[in-house]
């Protein structure tokens, strides 16, 4: 089934609010081997001027993925997820995510293009607080490998 190119420019519904917790930041930092006290020790984070422990730079993927899953699993788009690999990823941080943040993510398909036999779908996910403060823009390119 071909991918529907009319989806370029489409913005999906925002996710339910997500609470960034100390426990999840510590779990994620522990899983990647990041030992910075700023991710593990609220007191160290406060002394460095942050409201609470802060997330490593790629933590935003945990939030972005709940939003971009809407894109990859949209039957109208027609992506064959079994043939999909992660091609590119980027993050632009206005500020670090910290424990206590309540955020929502909203994804927009920016581009769908061919690369030889493959198809590349680029999705931008904007992460904002529930009060509307922009925190991070994540961009991911998925590659659907051709037969």
């Amino acid at each position, binding site marked *: 089934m071909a991918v529907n190119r009319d989806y370029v420019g489409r913005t999906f519904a925002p996710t339910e609010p997500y609470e960034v917790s100390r426990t999840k930041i510590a779990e994620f930092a522990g899983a990647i081997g990041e030992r*910075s006290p700023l991710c593990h020790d609220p007191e160290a984070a406060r002394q460095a001027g942050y409201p609470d422990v802060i997330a490593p730079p790629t933590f935003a993927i945990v939030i972005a993925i709940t939003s971009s899953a809407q894109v990859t699993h949209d039957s109208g788009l027609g992506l064959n997820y079994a043939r999909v690999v992660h091609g590119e*990823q980027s993050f632009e941080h206005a500020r670090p995510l910290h424990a206590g943040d309540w955020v929502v993510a909203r994804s927009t398909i920016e581009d769908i293009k061919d690369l030889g036999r493959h198809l590349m779908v680029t999705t931008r996910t904007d992460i904002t607080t529930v009060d509307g403060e922009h925190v991070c823009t994540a961009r991911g390119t998925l590659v659907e490998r051709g037969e």
Partner: protein
Amino acid sequence: MLSYADAEPGAELEPKQYPAARLDLVKYAGASGDFNVIHWNERLARSVGLPDVIAHGMFTMAQAGRYVTELAGGDPAAVLEFSVRFSAMVVVPDDDKGAMIEVSGTIAEKLDGNRVALSITARSGGAKVLTRARAVVRVP
């Protein structure tokens, strides 16, 4: 650790090695919520044509993120922008060692506001696994 005053465009930064064993992938799956079977089940990984279990691309990016964070003095918030292209797989065998990811970098550019752009590369098993990786960090 980098300082803005001493940052020389073109200067090479000391490479560092980051291990990736099966246990690391299992932990990352749980922490990230990405339970794709190719990252923990050898039988199913091989059935879709992979040589073995492979690391999550985002696990590899996270290791490069540690490298960049360390260069920026250990403050994850100093990493303002970070982008990568996943150019090859990190194959993680089921032995006591797993895989090794070597991350290296050069100073690409000095920007205003005490920001420095870094060009990053990661290699594993003889292949470049991250290319066109760039980070913008704020340094003292």
